[in-house]
């Protein structure tokens, strides 16, 4: 457990010392979400219709921006070798890195989403569901992204490959995340969508650290 905490703390401290990397992806989300209402125009009904989807796609792309860096620095400076040689399971250490990634690139989006949602004239209930769906959905993005980042580690042109690999896998989270808000707006209730999102988090939380660790071991062999 102390090793988990050490990796988490190290990643968070490093991010605080290079704030620009964290701020870039958060700023990207804010800009994307702010540009759409300007482009579409002040048509309230249209905005309400497209709002959840746009915010979700924005969150998805913003969390992808920082995926390439998840293991790259550790691979380059040899920290990954030391983590693989730790008596602790590599999966546990990778889980700490995934949690750090979510705190740095997922949590800010969750906190910003209700503010940005106001531009799309979403009701208070819809904003609440949007925040909840992102709270359940962004960990899925970090977890799935970690597997992609580990698989493309050390591959030339890995960033594009990472996007091609990971974006299709993000589709279910996007469908049910944006769908939850739509369902709430149309009066159907969001509980079914949110339950499915919760199930996705649980399944991903079990398999992703293990799969990422296996992919990292392969990357270390070359």
């Amino acid at each position, binding site marked *: 457990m102390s090793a988990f905490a050490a990796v988490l703390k190290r990643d968070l401290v*490093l991010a605080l*010392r290079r704030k620009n990397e964290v701020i870039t992806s958060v700023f990207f989300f804010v800009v994307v979400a702010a540009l759409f209402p300007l482009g579409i125009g002040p048509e309230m009904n249209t905005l309400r219709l497209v709002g959840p989807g746009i915010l979700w796609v924005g969150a998805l792309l913003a969390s992808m921006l920082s995926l390439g860096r998840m293991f790259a620095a550790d691979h380059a400076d040899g920290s990954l070798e*030391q983590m693989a040689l730790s008596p602790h399971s590599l999966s546990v250490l990778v889980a700490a890195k995934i949690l750090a990634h979510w705190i740095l690139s997922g949590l800010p989006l969750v906190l910003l989403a209700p503010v940005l949602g106001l531009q799309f004239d979403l009701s208070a209930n819809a904003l609440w569901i949007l925040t909840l769906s992102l709270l359940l959905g962004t960990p899925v993005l970090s977890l799935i992204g970690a597997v992609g980042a580990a698989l493309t580690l050390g591959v030339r042109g890995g960033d594009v490959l990472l996007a091609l690999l990971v974006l299709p896998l993000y589709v279910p989270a996007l469908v049910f995340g944006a769908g939850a808000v739509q369902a709430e707006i149309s009066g159907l209730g969001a509980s079914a969508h949110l339950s499915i999102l919760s199930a996705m988090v649980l399944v991903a939380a079990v398999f992703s650290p293990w799969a990422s660790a296996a992919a990292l071991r392969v990357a270390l062999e070359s």
Partner: protein
Amino acid sequence: MLTASNLSLSRGDRRLFSGVSFTLESGQWLHLEGDNGVGKTSLLHLLCGLISLEEGEIRWKGQTTAKTPEIFHADLAYLGHQLALKQDLSPLENLRADAAISGRELSVKDAMAALAQMGLRSREHLPVRVLSQGQQRRTALSRLIVSTAALWILDEPFVALDAAAQNALAGVINAHLSRQGMVLLTSHQDLSLAGSGRRYKLTA
């Protein structure tokens, strides 16, 4: 005791080495020699378990390392070409994070003492990126001072160090050997370490 028997490694179609066997007893050192590109680093990776074994067997205290890697890794300290230092953290923070990842608690006092021993007094709180190459290597090597591992696997530990640091490192290695530790290292220099030791020439 570390026993390697009949190890071999291929990269693509090329066979790097084959039939490598040796034993390392408590308090002994093994100096791995060989020309550039003969596969010294790869052999060290193979021994650590970073590369999976194609042929042969590695045993640590009688147990196959591939089967119980966590037991082996708890007794292992590895220092590679890459120093595994975070450039934005201070030597002190690096040392403490490394210790936690390798499963130990390290107090600030012990970490400061280790850094001072490697000649990094008053550099403990600077970010590693402002230190010179040699000082960065000293930071990485101070990991060994605080290590409780029985087996040290060191890849070119004497590179880029000045005479004083080389002596300090030799002292650290000798102290480890006198505590019945084991050291396996590569180096292109002639080494004069205490205790009993052997050279192993790696050939293709």
